[in-house]
């Protein structure tokens, strides 16, 4: 597609359930980022994938959070045993590093509400 695509756009779940959030980056972009934005707050870095390198997971807040990127393209962020404090907008961004400026292109986000 033309831009970064995220799904679902909205997800309401019950505390303790697992959720999966999907990100489809811009074709050819080698770098993919996940950020979390709580209501009225800035962006919290979660994880970064660059090509085939090992991902930088330093921002994941707990072991309930994990992410993978299959075939260097689509990424899935999984949150296990969701808690109310996980409620936030999860933003995915991709970048064409190595050739251009590294500017990030963001998806519209997945709004997660944990009841």
């Amino acid at each position, binding site marked *: 597609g033309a831009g970064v695509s995220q799904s679902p756009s909205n997800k309401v779940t019950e505390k303790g359930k697992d959720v999966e959030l999907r990100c489809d980056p811009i074709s050819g972009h080698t770098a993919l980022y996940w950020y979390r934005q709580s209501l009225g707050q800035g962006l919290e870095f979660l994880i970064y994938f660059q090509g085939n390198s090992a991902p930088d997971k330093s921002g994941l807040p707990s072991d309930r959070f994990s992410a993978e990127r299959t075939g260097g393209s689509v990424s899935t962020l999984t949150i296990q045993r969701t808690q109310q404090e996980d409620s936030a907008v999860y933003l995915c961004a991709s970048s064409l590093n190595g050739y251009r*400026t590294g500017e*990030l292109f*963001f*998806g519209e986000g997945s709004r997660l509400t944990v009841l």
Partner: protein
Amino acid sequence: ELKVEQNPLFLSMQEGKNYTIYCNYSTTSDRLYWYRQDPGKSLESLFVLLSNGAVKQEGRLMASLDTKARLSTLHITAAVHDLSATYFCAVDKNNDMRFGAGTRLTVKP
């Protein structure tokens, strides 16, 4: 660890006035970005600054970068209501992109 600090975090200004938003960062980097976020929307790229002394302008916004001071500024000239949004700076260190907390700008008539 790369840290990015913005100030002010909240800015309310009258139309027609000028103001500057500041972005400081903790480690050497020569790639800095400014993004805009409208309420309920995602982030949109405004400026890409790739070298010391870089200056970019778009309409009433002008961004500059001083890599020696580890400082970028976003200057607003003669503000208009349409500029109301949250502005984020982000610093790229070895392709690791970290964001400031954002400056929520409100421009009042």
